[in-house]
């Protein structure tokens, strides 16, 4: 497929159903059910905010939607194809939850963003003109075109978050999953993020955004989904940050609110193969 013929948000085929469809999904981590009975549809061009407290399961849900977490029950389909059979990864742009784009070896902003182009590159073909144009365009959307030669470690945390968004953009996807891109990002960078996401929205991209609080992104959101204790507690028009974070929000049985307890006698050194149950 020629990349130029397929700009973000302009789906080549008309879809009858939703872009993302989650049906009766349960996810278990280490045998413990974390998500239960999730039903969720995201329509073409929708900007959905997945909200909720820490540990409510919003990140796990996004990871289940992208295939990073196996489903214990139910189905997820993307663009009408079941996740297990899904292969059109170039239509998906994923921004994982990371505090930094840095690793143990220096990497330039250009190199990190170019790695997002792999979904569209044929096996062992060097970067073509369309690839370079897309990488440059992605850097311009997030406002970092002048920093492409710099090492990512030279950027601030908020700028690195924008690099990760540019990396997802470089593949020119139709559907974006962003996991807490605003966490720990200062206000100026949150505004830059909001501006970049606004560009995506205006191009008709479908966006699923995980956020603890929306801040400057609030005006972009078409629909809010609030998670609570592994279930969808609210699915409807956008809500303000103060509503969602109110301690009694959606709390019908506040008298039996039980704090999850951590056992203090958990072993500090475990066998390496025990680690799979963690996180």
């Amino acid at each position: 497929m020629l990349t130029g013929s397929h700009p973000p948000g302009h789906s080549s085929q008309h879809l009858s159903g939703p872009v993302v469809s989650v049906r009766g999904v349960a996810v278990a981590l280490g045998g413990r059910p974390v998500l239960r009975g999730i039903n969720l549809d995201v329509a073409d061009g929708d900007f959905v905010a997945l909200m909720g407290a820490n540990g409510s399961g919003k990140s796990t849900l996004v990871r289940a939607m992208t295939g990073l977490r196996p489903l214990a029950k139910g189905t997820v389909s993307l663009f009408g194809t079941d996740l297990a059979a899904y292969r059109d990864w170039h239509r998906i742009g994923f921004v994982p939850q990371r505090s930094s784009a840095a690793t143990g070896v220096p990497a330039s902003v250009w190199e990190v963003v170019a790695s997002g182009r792999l979904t569209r590159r044929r096996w062992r073909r060097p970067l073509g003109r369309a690839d370079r144009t897309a990488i440059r365009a992605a850097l311009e959307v997030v406002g970092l075109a002048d920093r492409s030669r710099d090492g990512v470690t030279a950027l601030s945390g908020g700028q690195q978050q924008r690099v990760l968004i540019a990396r997802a953009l470089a593949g020119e996807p139709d559907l974006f999953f962003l996991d807490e891109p605003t966490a720990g990002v200062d206000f100026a960078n949150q505004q830059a993020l909001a501006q970049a996401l606004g560009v995506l929205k205006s191009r008709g991209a479908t966006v699923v955004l995980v956020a603890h609080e929306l801040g400057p992104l609030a005006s972009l959101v078409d629909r809010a989904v609030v998670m609570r204790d592994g279930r969808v507690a609210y699915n409807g028009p956008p809500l303000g940050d103060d509503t969602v974070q109110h301690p009694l929000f959606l709390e019908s049985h506040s008298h039996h609110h039980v704090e999850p307890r951590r056992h203090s006698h958990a072993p500090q050194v475990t066998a390496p193969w025990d680690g799979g149950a963690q996180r």
Partner: protein
Amino acid sequence: MNILTYDFMIRALVAALFTGLAAPAVGTYLVQRRLALMGDGIGHVAVTGVALGLLTGTSPTWTAVGVAAMGAVLIEVIRENGRANGDVALALLFYGGIAGGVLLIGIAGQNAASLQAYLFGSITTTSSGDVWVTVVLSLIVVVVCLGLLPQLFAVAQDEEFAAVAGLRVRFFNILVAVLAAVTVTVAMRTVGLLLVSALMVVPVATAQQVTRSFRSTLGLAMGLGVGASLGGLVLAALASQRWAVAPGPSIVLLALAGFALTWPIGAVLRRRQQLAEPFGPHDPLDHEETGQHPHEHGPECGHAAVTHGDHVDYVHDGHRHASHGEHYDEH
């Protein structure tokens, strides 16, 4: 200098050249994934492989490749299933590898000294068959490391992103682990199993003092690896006319000397970059003029010029001076 023209020395130099190219190439990906010690873990496991070869009378090179590759895959599988305990997984293999190796050597009826040549390298024991194995395996490692650079970079940079981009993350991780195992065995004759990891890691650490991109780090590390490998071998050969010097220590010490010389340059570069970082877009609180300033700020005055919004602030003695008509403002 005529020692350099002996046949065994030429064989050792060829082996060192290719080892010096391959080790930092794999090492760059290991360091990128913050698994700098993985080479050590594989090296220790390979000791058992060598001992197995000596015990069964087969070529230690091939038994070492086999056992090291199995160990590398095991490390990778354990790391993948329990990422919080990757270091413990490495530690378990360290101990198991060394203990198994020394035990098998004893059963083979040899003393631990016969392991010496494998642990710290040797100039004289490289046969022409070994050289061919070294050259071919090194070339495979280098070709894969450079040929699959975009994929390997993406996986090592961010596994979750790579998985959602449709890359087979586990395949590439195990590929790097096996490449590391092959490199360890290749380097066994030159630097030795206990020091091979240094040749994978130290050139990368040295290169990244002065580089900003992944490709330049990889390229420079390979160059430095060749330099350290050949230089250390020659030093060991010259010194061995008087003392018993294994090439492993001299190669590693030469690589470390390169790091020690480069680190101050890196520190200066990092400090300069930090100082040149533009100031935030905030406007000054109020218009505050400086007193009489002894000179005009400019490229020649020696004060750091830092971008601040649409103008330049000159930094000195805890002040930020911005030019404003005839005078300077405090910013």
